[in-house]
């Protein structure tokens, strides 16, 4: 364990988060549900990793595992060299000031009976960051200013605010403890496009100003393209493709990524594309049979696809795909 931690320290300059062979199984009456099944990836310090996939692909579970809102079944998550999965509770308390989370639904993720000030100040109180009310008020107003909440909303209640402003409360709460790393779990999915743009701009400004590292989880590919340097595409608990955003969008290598990208409706006129329409639907994540999870829907399926899990391998420099045919799409 200590050897691994040391190894993590050595690589600490570049990668803030290193995830290796991470698994999360949930037990159900019908067997184990493989929510996250053996995934590995790194997040570079100060960058944004976009994690995309459809409902049930395990992206939110991964986000929760990273900040230890869920306990991992197996694998390691090194945060600045410290293994989050095994850190004792007293270390976790310090770690949690450095890694935070922004949730999808600003309507259900904040307590409706607290005022804006008390919501934003809650982490300060819990971690005993501030020692008196003047300090509390000063810090809360500072945070409100950072996320663009008007001063007059200090004593307002969430129901008086629209979704965009509520999400700003969520962001201010996450920033209260000066974190380095924030897991953003679909932070703009519940918002209208004009408000969504405001929040995305805010998140990018904050990253620039505070040097934050993001894991940005979303099902919206236009958003992820816009905000991330690198992208991980998940399907049924596994990573099917990983690579730099631009290259991945230009030339997706996994048949699932190809179908996913071709399915995005574009608000442009001159784009009659060849859309790949997938057959059937996602198969069950409960005790999945060996082999590629995408094989039942794949147009290019071969006998070897169902024999064993295809490894996520480097197909060309920096481009990883878990498909035997990936070279074909290079």
């Amino acid at each position, binding site marked *: 364990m200590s050897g691994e931690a040391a190894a993590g320290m050595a690589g600490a300059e570049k990668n803030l988060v290193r995830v290796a062979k991470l698994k999360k199984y949930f037990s159900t009456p019908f067997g184990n549900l493989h929510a996250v099944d053996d995934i590995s990836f790194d997040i570079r310090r100060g960058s944004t990793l976009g994690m995309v996939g459809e409902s049930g692909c395990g992206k939110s579970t991964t986000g929760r595992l990273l900040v230890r809102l869920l306990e991992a079944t197996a694998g390691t998550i090194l945060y600045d060299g410290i293994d989050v999965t095994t850190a004792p509770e007293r270390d976790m308390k310090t770690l949690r000031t450095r890694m935070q989370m922004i949730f999808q639904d600003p309507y259900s993720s904040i307590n409706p009976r607290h005022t804006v000030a008390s919501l934003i100040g809650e982490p300060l109180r819990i971690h005993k960051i501030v020692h008196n009310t003047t300090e509390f008020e000063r810090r809360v107003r500072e945070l409100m200013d950072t996320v663009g909440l008007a001063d007059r909303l200090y004593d307002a209640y969430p129901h008086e605010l629209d979704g965009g402003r509520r999400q700003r409360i969520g962001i201010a709460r996450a920033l209260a403890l000066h974190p380095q790393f924030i897991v953003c779990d679909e932070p703009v999915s519940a918002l209208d496009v*004009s408000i969504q743009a405001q929040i995305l701009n805010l998140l990018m400004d904050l990253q620039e100003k505070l040097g934050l590292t993001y894991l940005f989880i979303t099902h919206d590919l*236009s958003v992820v393209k816009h905000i991330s340097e690198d992208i991980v595409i998940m399907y049924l608990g596994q990573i099917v493709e990983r690579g730099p955003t*631009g290259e991945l969008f230009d030339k997706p290598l996994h048949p699932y990524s190809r179908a996913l990208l*071709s399915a995005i409706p*574009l*608000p*442009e*006129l001159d*784009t009659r594309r060849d859309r790949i329409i*997938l057959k059937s639907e996602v198969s069950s994540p409960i005790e999945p049979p060996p082999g590629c999870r995408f094989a039942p829907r794949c147009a290019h399926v071969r006998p070897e696809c169902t024999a064993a899990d295809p490894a996520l391998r480097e197909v060309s420099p920096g481009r990883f795909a878990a498909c035997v045919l990936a070279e074909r799409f290079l």
Partner: protein
Amino acid sequence: MDNLLEIRDLAVHYYSNRKVVEAVNHLSLDMKKGTVLGLVGETGAGKTTLALSIVNMIRGPQGKIVQGSLRFNGKDILAMGRQELRGLRGKDIAMIFQDPMTALNPVLPVGDQIAETVIRHEGLTRAQGWKKAEEMLETVGIPGIRSREYPHQFSGGMKQRVVIALALACNPVLLLADEPTTALDVTIQAQVLDLMRKLIRENGTSVLFITHSLGLVAENCDEVATMYAGEIVEYGTVDQVFGRPLHPYTRGLFGSLPRLRDSQRRLTPIPGLMPDPTALPRGCYFAPRCPDKMPVCGEIHPRDHLFEGHRVKCHLYGGNGREAGNER
């Protein structure tokens, strides 16, 4: 007559706590036969209220159509009696709602729900109705044998396909599709829309396609109407509106979108929020957020201005300001 639907000066209000919510305001819109009209706008713009008005389903006492007329195939919908409306809904005008989970009856097999509709509207026997239900399910790619199953036994995408089968079972003339794919994942959305397009083309159905996604409009619609604070602020063919959006709000919507093709980092959001529908501003409803605001905009509510069939409700194009030709 080539207009299937004519909406004139429609106003719908909701009443709550002595306040009046002006959800739809003096709205006029025509739909031609066989077209797919996209209705875009943000939450609270009044899109769903408009759709519900078309089938006279605004619930009283809190909701009321206070003004205007709705003509479907020349007949006044608001003057129709209960029986006539029942014959219209589900037969000539069908609806697909956003959430398939709430559109289906959870305690009835899906086949039953389709059969019920065709038995009622087409006068089929029970056996014929079930046969038709199975056929419709097959059309949307669900094995007919599953007609005895209940909604919870289907996935979200399949449930939405059941809803489509139900909506199209009686060959409607007009389909009101209210965010039909918003609850679905993109690959499933692509499947469902592909199917919808095919069925619509085969039957020559007209569609009012309500969505907040400009991408879906570009790919599925012939015409598009932008709705803001209960009004249609811009209306034209998809080529006209996407080729050159005129209204500052429509342009703002395009600016807010993260584009797949561009590499620009900053988005240009529309500042501020939609006005409170219980206290709409005196002049143009969009004026408080508008980057091109002129003094007149805060005073006088703009009229519709027309450019080659492309309609826009904005003072910029009314001789008070710049002409359309000077834009962009």
